[in-house]
């Protein structure tokens, strides 16, 4: 939700027609760069980005600033930075109605990045195109809390997002795409939340589409997850084209307890021994099918209801509601369990 109450000392305008010497508090007196505003703004302020390409890094972390960064056009208010993270987020920041992109190709390029423990961040109505991850709030030891992502388009060459370990991830109405072009040796996932021990989140009405067309043995997953998750009204799609021999899974369960409803799964690969629509076993990364991946009382399990997937293409076990014959049952390695 955007809340705007007119110009004030707490509202800063940035426009390509702006000037360094302007006050920045109206469009007519806009600043020329976002960095000029960051040098003057205080936490709680709102920075309005008028249409144009702003080829600069927005480093709110270094500035220690909690602000609202709001574009006036989702596609034409553009932060474009090729030499590092386009936006280094600080806690309690909100990004609205912006495009964030980069043309470079390093691991630190073109993303909205939160350092360890960066919490209470909202990304809404943004379009993000990155040669690595689009959005990354993942840290091995210090998690982020309460990250909201709403109505965003994210297209990443590695992962569209990396929310591994986030405690309280709420994402809805987003389109996430990854194509693996960052590195043939690297897995690509539209949604990645499996790096560290256990995130916690709810994903609804999202499309997670991962597809690669390189000669790679790395994985291609629509989404992977670790921790506790809910997915509702989502599409999971993985397509590794004709050259891939890595694990291709629409959804890859990496030690996760997840409830999934009203969702579609689709995966395709030329390597019949290693693709699946829904994959549960952690051992799969070692090339094994874990037919005992699901047991009563174990936490690493999935439960699907009202979903569309091919029961012949499952590694591991899951519980699905209402099979084709009307029965409820666990599935196992593509067979009825």
């Amino acid at each position, binding site marked *: 939700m955007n809340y705007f109450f007119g110009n004030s000392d707490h509202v800063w305008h940035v426009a390509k027609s702006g000037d360094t010497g302007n006050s920045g508090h109206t469009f007519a007196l806009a600043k020329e760069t976002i960095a000029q505003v960051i040098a003057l703004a205080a936490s709680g302020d709102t920075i309005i980005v008028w249409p144009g390409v702003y080829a600069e890094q927005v480093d709110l972390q270094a500035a220690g600033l909690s602000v609202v960064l709001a574009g006036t056009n989702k596609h034409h208010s553009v932060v474009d930075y090729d030499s590092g993270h386009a936006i280094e987020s600080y806690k309690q920041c909100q990004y609205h109605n912006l495009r964030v992109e980069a043309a470079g190709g390093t691991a630190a390029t073109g993303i909205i990045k939160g350092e360890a423990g960066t919490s209470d961040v909202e990304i809404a109505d943004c379009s993000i195109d990155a040669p690595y991850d689009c959005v990354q709030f993942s840290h091995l030891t210090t998690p982020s809390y309460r990250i909201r992502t709403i109505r965003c388009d994210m297209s990443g060459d590695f992962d569209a997002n990396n929310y591994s370990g986030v405690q*309280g991830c709420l994402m809805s109405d987003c389109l996430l795409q990854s194509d693996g072009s960052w590195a043939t040796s690297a897995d690509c996932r539209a949604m990645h939340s499996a790096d560290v021990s256990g995130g916690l989140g709810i994903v609804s009405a999202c499309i997670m589409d991962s597809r690669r067309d390189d000669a790679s043995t790395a994985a291609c997953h629509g989404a992977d997850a670790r921790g506790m998750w809910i997915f509702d009204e989502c599409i999971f799609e993985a397509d590794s084209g004709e050259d891939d021999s890595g694990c291709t899974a629409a959804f890859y369960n990496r030690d996760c307890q997840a409830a999934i409803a009203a969702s579609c799964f689709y995966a395709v690969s030329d390597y019949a021994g290693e693709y699946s629509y829904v994959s549960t076993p952690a051992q799969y990364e070692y090339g094994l099918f874990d037919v005992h991946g699901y047991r009563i009382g174990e936490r690493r399990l999935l439960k699907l209801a009202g979903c569309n997937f091919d029961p012949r293409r499952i590694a591991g076990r899951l519980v699905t509601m209402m099979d084709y014959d009307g029965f409820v049952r666990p599935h196992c390695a593509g067979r009825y369990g």
Partner: protein
Amino acid sequence: MGFYFCGDSDHVWHVSAGAADNSGGGHSFATARKTLVTADSGNGAITDAASGDMIVIWPGTYAEAVDLATLTKSLEIVGTNKYLSKIAPASGNAITLYDKTILRNMTVDSAGTALIGAARSDILLEDCYIDGDSAALNTSLVANGRLVARRCDFISKAVNTISLLPSFASAEIAPVLFEECIVAGVTPASVHTILRNLLIGLNSLGRIAGVFRKSIFTATRTDVSGRFCYAASVVGRHVFDDCIFQALMTDGSASGPCAALETNDAVAASTRLVLNNCNIKSSGGGSNYDISNAGGSRIVIANSIYDKTQVNGDLIDMDYEDGKVRFAGAFGGRY
């Protein structure tokens, strides 16, 4: 995406911590008042506002307790920044709710209870961060009173993060709606035996009826042994759709019960719950219950994931793995 502002007028009051005092008219940022209710060369904005007016809070920390009930004013209070437009008195409760109170896009932070009310109706909370050391939200609702919370975070280190009770004893309901909220309770700051993160209670025959969607309820405590920990403890008629319940303790067998979802109805025949596509987990307690229905209330659960061996009491599970619908309790909470 929406906008909620129709321009400055006599019905809009601006409050800015950067204002010199309250001598300005208050109807624009340039003439903003400095305080909400505290006199300072003039009245605070809320003091002069009338029911139906909007209070715009510019960034800053306003160390004032706002008692809308005593003032009998129904106001819409809107921050310009969810986290930095902050009402945070040095002590005591932050905002005492009155009927038809609307709070948007702001933080309420209190050493006492952040939002407190008694026998209220028509409360609307959107895009707020609410943190109270004694509770984030503690109110009772009148029969047919309504409370709606969307995209809000409720944080506390007290006995209850949220406590909702009927103020009426008759066989009626007070409806509530929660969407995309996070309700998180952690180890109480002072010694409390029981942590009930979300508590929805009863009043004789009076009940709350709620729909909770896409919301997360977590309770975590790491203090000494013998404590209790519940992510949600509810009475009434409720639907939980796409919700996560997680209760975590770290004291192992020395701890008391740890339950992700508990019913606690002294009149067992009156509580009905539906849980759909929920994810439920408890761990670390002396005894762990993903679902504890000791009172014998009726719970229907579908499409949800929990550990069947960690169920206390009865429930109706629509999708046991063998394809049969059954009372889990008939099997002692296990196969």
